[in-house]
């Protein structure tokens, strides 16, 4: 018996798991489909959903799938605690509650006709993947695409096959590095900012989209500024504690902003000063 689907952002809609794929030892990609097949899924790259596991809890997770597909919602989840652990252990056919999508996404309009520099760290590549799909599927609307991706170690890298596929697109450069190479890795080793020297950026025509741990975003923003890119042209995706995702619970406040409504994507100019403030 299906629940009547409402557009109430406070009520989880029933979805079920259509596929679970392991990306790394602690990270899985879940593909969900709405219980009621007539419902079409729709989201902007950079938005997130609140995923609910029956009786356990609800979590904000960025949507990491292809925005052109309207029969599914895809999420890449890292198991770091009890709630994420229960999410990654779901089986095909299990039910999941979905609220959303919420938030302000990556700025498609500001990026039109310009070179896009995607700088991702760790799981930060997940909320950027929908943007990459969007750019590659509408190639003529954008200039060059440069993807700089830094991970902890080779086995922690996400979407390795796709990274190779993306690199084969015209006017697309994909560079990957790890902090720790370990045994057998012959690729690049060093923090993600060390990849800039292999690019030929034209700052005036570039827009940068950055996502990763806050420390990483801070030093990447510094490097982008050194490269001559203005704060108006840099976008970051911020994260804070979230309970309601609709601007009522007050938890996600970051300075004067509610990350659930005003973010998670912010133009760097708005949050530059906040990035440097301790305990804000």
């Amino acid at each position, binding site marked *: 018996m299906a629940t009547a689907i409402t557009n109430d952002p406070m009520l989880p809609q029933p979805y079920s798991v259509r596929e679970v794929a392991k990306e790394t030892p602690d990270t899985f990609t879940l593909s969900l489909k709405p219980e009621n097949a007539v419902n079409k899924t729709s989201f902007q790259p950079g938005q997130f959903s609140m995923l609910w596991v029956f009786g356990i809890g609800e979590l904000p997770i960025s949507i990491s799938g292809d925005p052109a597909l309207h029969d599914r919602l895809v999420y890449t989840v890292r198991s770091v605690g009890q709630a994420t652990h229960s999410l990654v252990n779901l089986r095909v056919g299990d039910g999941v509650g979905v609220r959303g999508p919420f938030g302000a996404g990556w700025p498609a309009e500001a990026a039109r006709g310009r070179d896009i520099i995607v700088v991702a760290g760790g799981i930060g590549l997940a909320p950027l993947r929908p943007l990459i799909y969007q750019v590659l599927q509408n190639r003529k609307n954008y200039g060059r695409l440069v993807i700089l991706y830094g991970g902890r170690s080779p086995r922690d890298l996400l979407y390795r096959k796709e990274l190779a596929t993306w690199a084969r697109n015209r006017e697309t450069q994909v560079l990957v590095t790890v902090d720790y*190479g370990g045994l057998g890795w012959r690729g690049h080793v060093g923090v993600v900012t060390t990849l800039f020297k292999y690019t030929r950026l034209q700052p005036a025509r570039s827009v940068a989209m950055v996502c990763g741990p806050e*420390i990483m975003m801070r*030093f990447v923003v510094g490097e982008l500024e050194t490269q001559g890119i203005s704060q108006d042209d840099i976008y970051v995706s911020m994260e804070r504690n979230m309970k309601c995702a609709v601007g009522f619970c007050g938890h996600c406040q970051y300075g004067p902003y509610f990350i659930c409504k005003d973010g998670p994507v912010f133009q760097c100019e708005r949050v530059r000063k906040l990035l440097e403030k301790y305990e804000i």
Partner: protein
Amino acid sequence: METLKGIITEHPFFAGLDDSFADLMVSCASNVRFKAGTYILKEGDAANTFYLIREGKVAVEVFAPQHKPIIVSTLGVGEILGWSWLMPPFQWKFHAHAVDDIRAIALDGKCLRTKCEENHDLGYEILKRFARIMEQRLEATRLQLLDVYGVRR
């Protein structure tokens, strides 16, 4: 066709050097190539040369018993490889492995060491520049050590 002098004086590392010092650099410099897969320098060897990378990537490695060496850092175009030639015991602390075919400018560190002792102004200019490189590498290394992508427990 680019001359050695042209390459050296245009490189950011040498920017601002007095003309006479620039000439001195050129007199200690030569073009070199390394094939991909070969070692440019090895841990423990005498450190008497440093390199300005013009093309290709170099992996800085640490010897690991029972395994292939582990890469700790990758250097690329425009970067300087090697500073152990500046300080005693003048010995390399890491391997440098050519990832790609490498084109570089090699500079005679042994010769430069002597000249720096004789002319402290030259010494200061060289040390100032190497201090900057070390600062950048240290900063990057610290960020690597932070393990920002790891899960804090």
